[in-house]
């Protein structure tokens, strides 16, 4: 399979899945925007109305963190289950196994384009003025994508060998949701050393903070941190492509029999 065929197949699978998805629900494509907004709504009610967050612009703050996080967590979860759930096809044809997580990730990418457009609109409406700094969003989004790909590949292989990992990955996402500064601010913790530590060890906290730095703070994200995480996840993704190529037939047998 050539690279262009591979990319075309990811794209076609993603578009077909989105079409099928939209036809299943009464509200169809509206759910692309509505689902993440409902997540934001729930968090807003709990942390601002009930718990009174005292953040001056909690809605924008929350959306800058929650919307990229939902993209990350949903893509990694569905990507992790992609090989197992395509067992029927995998039993018929020998294709690169990365194709299946990549197709699910691509589905998320199309949805996220609409979500990011909405996010930008909300940020502008709430009084933040666009500047050249906002171009930093492009490398930040690219890094976010790279994180999704690397994590989904690792997840897909683990779930293939032990289905139990599918549970653990979902739980891990809940853990990340609480520890990545979605409804609390990493930068206003009482201990600056703790802020430093969280940004250095939790890539999700780092990337969500980067979105806020750009959109709300009007400053460029930490370039050193960006490069470090890009290197880590780039190497992880490349390593997984290599491993999944080596294990292609073993993964097929596992998907078919386990």
């Amino acid at each position, binding site marked *: 399979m050539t690279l262009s065929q591979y990319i075309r197949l990811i794209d076609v699978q993603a578009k*077909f899945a989105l079409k099928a998805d939209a036809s299943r629900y009464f509200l169809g494509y509206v759910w692309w925007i509505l689902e993440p907004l409902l997540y934001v709504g729930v968090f807003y009610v709990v942390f601002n109305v009930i718990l009174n967050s005292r953040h001056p612009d909690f809605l924008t703050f929350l959306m800058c963190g929650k919307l990229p996080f939902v993209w990350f967590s949903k893509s990694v979860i569905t990507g992790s289950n992609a090989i197992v759930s395509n067992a029927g096809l995998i039993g018929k044809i020998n294709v690169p196994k990365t194709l299946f997580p990549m197709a699910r990730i691509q589905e998320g990418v199309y949805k996220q384009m609409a979500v990011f457009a909405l996010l930008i609109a909300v940020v502008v409406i709430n009084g933040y003025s666009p500047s050249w700094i906002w171009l930093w969003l492009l490398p930040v989004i690219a890094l976010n994508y790279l994180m999704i790909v690397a994590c989904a590949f690792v997840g897909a292989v683990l779930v293939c060998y032990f289905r139990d990992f599918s549970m653990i990955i979902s739980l891990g996402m809940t853990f990340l949701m609480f520890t990545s500064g979605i409804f609390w601010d990493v930068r206003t913790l009482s201990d600056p050393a703790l802020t430093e530590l969280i940004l250095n060890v939790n890539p999700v906290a780092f990337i969500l903070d980067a979105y806020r730095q750009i959109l709300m703070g009007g400053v460029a994200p930490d370039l050193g941190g960006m490069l470090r995480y890009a290197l880590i996840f780039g190497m992880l993704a490349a390593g997984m492509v290599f491993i999944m190529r080596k294990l292609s037939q073993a993964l097929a*047998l596992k998907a078919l029999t386990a």
Partner: protein
Amino acid sequence: MSRQSDAILELDGVYLNYSAGKNHFSEGVHHVLEDVSLTLTEGETLGVIGRNGCGKTTILRLMGGIIAPTKGSVWQRPGTASALLSIGLGFRGDLSGRDNALLSAMMQGASRRHAMSFLEEIKEFSELGESFEEPVKTYSSGMRSRLGFTTALITHVDILLIDEVLSVGDAHFKNKAERAMRERLSGDQTVVFVSHADKQIESLCDRAIWINNGRIACGGETSEVVSAYRESIEKSNNG
């Protein structure tokens, strides 16, 4: 072992075991195939016969490179393409027949434009009519098999691995499918045809092997193999 010059695919001392489910200890290991060796030559039609669960589908998957043997080797002549055709699985229920056919063709290596070009042909041959645009989950099993068979038939590969495709569908479509198959078989197409239906094997194949309990019980002339297979079935029915 020297290879025949017209060999296109070869299995040499192939074993396949796997452990199913959460049981990773030796008692959970399934021995599907044991010491299977065979050579497929270019242009021939090889029948694989055996009862349900004897390892027929597994042989096809090994031949297609979908899974690797636990022990032994599978050789395919470099540069040849093979495709496994089977019914039922591999369709996405929420997509239309048209979208599924396009996806299948692309998975088999056709470019998008090429795949698009034979969609109408698939629609016509499968006789699905307006249902071709409906989601596959609304199809009957016969309709699914018609779509599966037609999609498979239209795509051209060097080695065609066929898994019980002709076993479902109504009598009219079955005849039509068999005719189309025979047309393909009479050319230089190399085919491995798996079935538990001895009559189909007899009418379509040059050579056959009979798989019993994961081993080749008998191989050679189709008529000899089929009669040995029939004998054993009768024996087990009487006993």
